[in-house]
Structure formats: structure tokens, C-alpha cells
């Protein structure tokens, strides 16, 4: 089943086209990475798909719901982990999880039940009573992803989830993200090529607001006749990349 389908999705700011007629289809349970240099249109695409900004033209369907006509319904289907850690600093880890669960319609009792489950599955039980602001960057990021998942979204947007983390924290988070494969449709944006290569089922490369290529990492490397994925990315995302 198709989880996300964009139809000529376009966003312009004045005369500048940030996303230009994006046509993309992502299957349910797929881990799809969206790559591109700064200003390529990744964040704008995520913002439109998560109903943070309205498209200038075109539309996208998330599990059949239009982001233009039914944003409230779409919001109930998605989870977002923004680039910066998005936690309530003066709430404890447990309170953060309960807050988000309740914002998505859980009553107090079921929010507590969900929270306990997520504390355990994300290894957060030991720090459940700690205030979020006292956690290290890695733990905050882990909590941030748990917050995006506690609503049990059908589609999860992870915007540069490992940015600024040390190599150990990054690998641990890869493991967590990898475990989501098949269960949740994940749209990942990252600047780390090895991250996209290691985690993604398919990769889409954006340049100047346009989708330059879509495929598995291996298929894209073959297409560009490159031996490393970084070279492949440069060939596709660099100026004039038109594969």
C-alpha cells in the first residue's frame, strides 16, 4: 500500500522555487531517505508533508488523506522528530512522553500505559524521573524520537536525527531507527551519506527543488557509475546533476 504520494507538489517563496513539481511515491513500511545539499528543498518538502506549511500548488496524500484538504486528519497519522531536539525542558522524561500521548488523544490511564511501554523499549526507564534539560544530547535525541513515535504514527519524519551526536550515540540511534523498518514508514533527511546508505530502503536526491533520482543506494551508484555513495551523491546533487 502507498503511504505517501505527492502530486506535482510545489512550494515557492516569491520568485524562488523551493520545491518544484515533486512527484514521489513511498510504500508503507519503507525507510526513505531524502538527500540534498543545503537549500535543495528537503526541509520544505518535510514541512509541507507534515502540514507545517501549505504547498503553493499540487498536493500530497498521506495514507489517502490530502495535506491540503485534510491537514487535521494528516496530523493524526504522522509523527515528526525535528532537526533540533524537541522536548519540554522542565518536564521529566516520563512527563514528556505522557504529554505527547495525551495530545494525540490518549486519556491519562492509557497515556501512562503507553509511556511505560516506550520507556522500556527506548531504554529510558533509568532516566524516567530526570528532567529533559539535564539529559545529554544523545539521550535527548532518543527521547525526541520516542516522543515522535508514542502516538504510534503511520508515517514518521526524522529530520537529521543524528546531527551533532558522537559516533557511539549515532550508531545506537541507527539501531533504533533500523528497528522501525517495516513497522512505520520513515522519511529521513540527513547529510551523512553512510547513514542514508546503511538505513534506507530507497533514497531520493533533491537538487534545486527538483527530484534528481530515486532508487536504492546500489542502483543509484550503478546509474552514476561511481564506486562510493558519496561520489554518487555529488554526481546527482551537484550542479547540473540530471540523472
Amino acid at each position, binding site marked *: 500500500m502507498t503511504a505517501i504520494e505527492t502530486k506535482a507538489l510545489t512550494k515557492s517563496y516569491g520568485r524562488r522555487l523551493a520545491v518544484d513539481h515533486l512527484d514521489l511515491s513511498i510504500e508503507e513500511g519503507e525507510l526513505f531517505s531524502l538527500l540534498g545539499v543545503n537549500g535543495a528543498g528537503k526541509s520544505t518538502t518535510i514541512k509541507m508533508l507534515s502540514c*507545517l506549511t501549505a504547498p503553493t500548488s499540487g498536493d500530497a496524500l498521506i495514507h489517502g488523506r490530502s495535506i491540503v484538504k485534510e491537514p487535521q486528519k494528516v496530523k493524526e497519522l504522522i509523527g*515528526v522528530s525535528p532537526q533540533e531536539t524537541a522536548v*519540554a525542558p522542565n518536564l521529566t522524561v516520563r512527563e514528556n512522553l*505522557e504529554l505527547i500521548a495525551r495530545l494525540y488523544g490518549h486519556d491519562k490511564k492509557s497515556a501512562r500505559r503507553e509511556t511505560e511501554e516506550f520507556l522500556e523499549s527506548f531504554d529510558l526507564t533509568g532516566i524516567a524521573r530526570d528532567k529533559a534539560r539535564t539529559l545529554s544530547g544523545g539521550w535527548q535525541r532518543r527521547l525526541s524520537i520516542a516522543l515522535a513515535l508514542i502516538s504510534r504514527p503511520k508515517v514518521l519524519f526524522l529530520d537529521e536525527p543524528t546531527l551533532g551526536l558522537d559516533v557511539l550515540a549515532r550508531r545506537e540511534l541507527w539501531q533504533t531507527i533500523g528497528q522501525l523498518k517495516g513497522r512505520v514508514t520513515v522519511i529521513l533527511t540527513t547529510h551523512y551519506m553512510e547513514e542514508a546508505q546503511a538505513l534506507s530502503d530507497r533514497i531520493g536526491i533533491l537538487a534545486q527543488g527538483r527530484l534528481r533520482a530515486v532508487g536504492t543506494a546500489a542502483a543509484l551508484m550503478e546509474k552514476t557509475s561511481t564506486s562510493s555513495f558519496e561520489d554518487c551523491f555529488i554526481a546527482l546533487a551537484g550542479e547540473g546533476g540530471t540523472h
Partner: protein
Amino acid sequence: MRLLAFASRNGKEILRDKLTLFFGIGFPVVLLLLLSAIQANVPVTLFAVENLTPGIAVFGLSFLALFSGLLIAKDRTTALMQRLFTSPLRPSEFIFGYILPLLPMAVAQSILCFLVALPLGLSLSPRILLVLAVLLPADVLFIALGLLCGSVFNDKQVGGICGALLTNLSAWLSGTWFDVSLVGGVFETIADLLPFCHAVEAGRAALCGNFSGIFPHLWWVIGYAAALSLIAIWAFTKKLKSDA
């Protein structure tokens, strides 16, 4: 349900900030004790506890405006807000989620002022409950000011505007520290046009049982509270859209 969850979070964020507790509760109480001590040594009618307490209660609300403004301004710049924007929380739930926890805090702050005033000589009377009711429009007024400043300015600007300007305006122009009619002229006119001295006078009238003296002043406060609430909600909703 969503509204209450968000309101509860905002209440915790404010109450768990030690500075909020100190300035919101401690500072007005210290002022009340200090000015009562002055009154004990050099009797001044203005500093008599029945005149002073409503004034301090109104002045204390300016700190509430400061801290609610800071919370909203800080929230607007964080990724948490982005997460909340993508949640099913509706704009009205955002607004009332900020306002709801502040109202009981404002009332609690006023109650504390009166509790401290009792051992300082204030008579325990049902009229204290009337004062708390009369101060409700002032509570709304200061909460709306916090919402407006938090929506329009960043946290540093809120610190300057609410922390310095609003606290000073509400102190100087409220008639709590000195009788504005003694200054007279433009100063008195400005004080009369602004709601702060009217909030204090309405509270004083209620406390001394001068019931006919409440409403001429209270209308001013209600008018300002209603107008500022509408402007604050408009500004907040507009910012909500542009920040997203």
C-alpha cells in the same frame, strides 16, 4: 483532553522555574513586609495594610505577565513548538493552553498576598473574597499582556519589555507607592488613562466595603482586559501561522 494536557505542561514549566517562584511569590511578599515595616515606623496612609495589599497584589501580576511572556517567546523559538504544530493541537487549544494555568496562578498569588497581610493587621473579612473577584479582570489583563508580548517579541525583548517596562509602569502608575494626584499634570492623566491605578482602586474600594466605588474603576480594567485579550489572541494566532 489535549487542552488540559498542554495547559498542565505550561503550568509545570512556569512553576518549576525557581526565578518565577521567587519573583512571582517571594518578591511581592517581601515588598509587603518591607512597606509594612516602614508604615509601622513612619505611618503613611498609603502604606496602611488595607491600602497596600490590593496594590501589591496588582503589582505582583506584572511578574506573571513577564514569566508567561517568556515561556511563550521561548517556546516559539524551540523545536518543541514545531513538534506541537504537527500534532492535532488546534490554535484555540494553544491559546487557552497558555491562559488556563495562569489564571489559578494569578488568583493564588493574590491569595498569598492577603494571607501575608493578615498577620500584618488586615482584618479577616469576606470582603477579601470580593477583592479576589474584583481583581479577576486585572488577572486576565496581565495574562493577555504576557500572551501578547510572548507572541510578538523574542525572549530577550520580553525580558526587557515585561521585566523592566511593565513592572515599572504598573508600579509607578498604579498609585501603590505614591499618590499619583500628588504628581498631577500629564503623569496623573496618563495614570488615569491606563488600567493599573483603576485595578488598585477597585481592589481598595472592595476591601473597605465601598461597593459603589468599585465599578467606575473596574470598567476601565474590564475594557482593557477585553481589548488586550482580543489583540493578544489575534497576534498569537498570526504568529502561530507565520512561525510554522
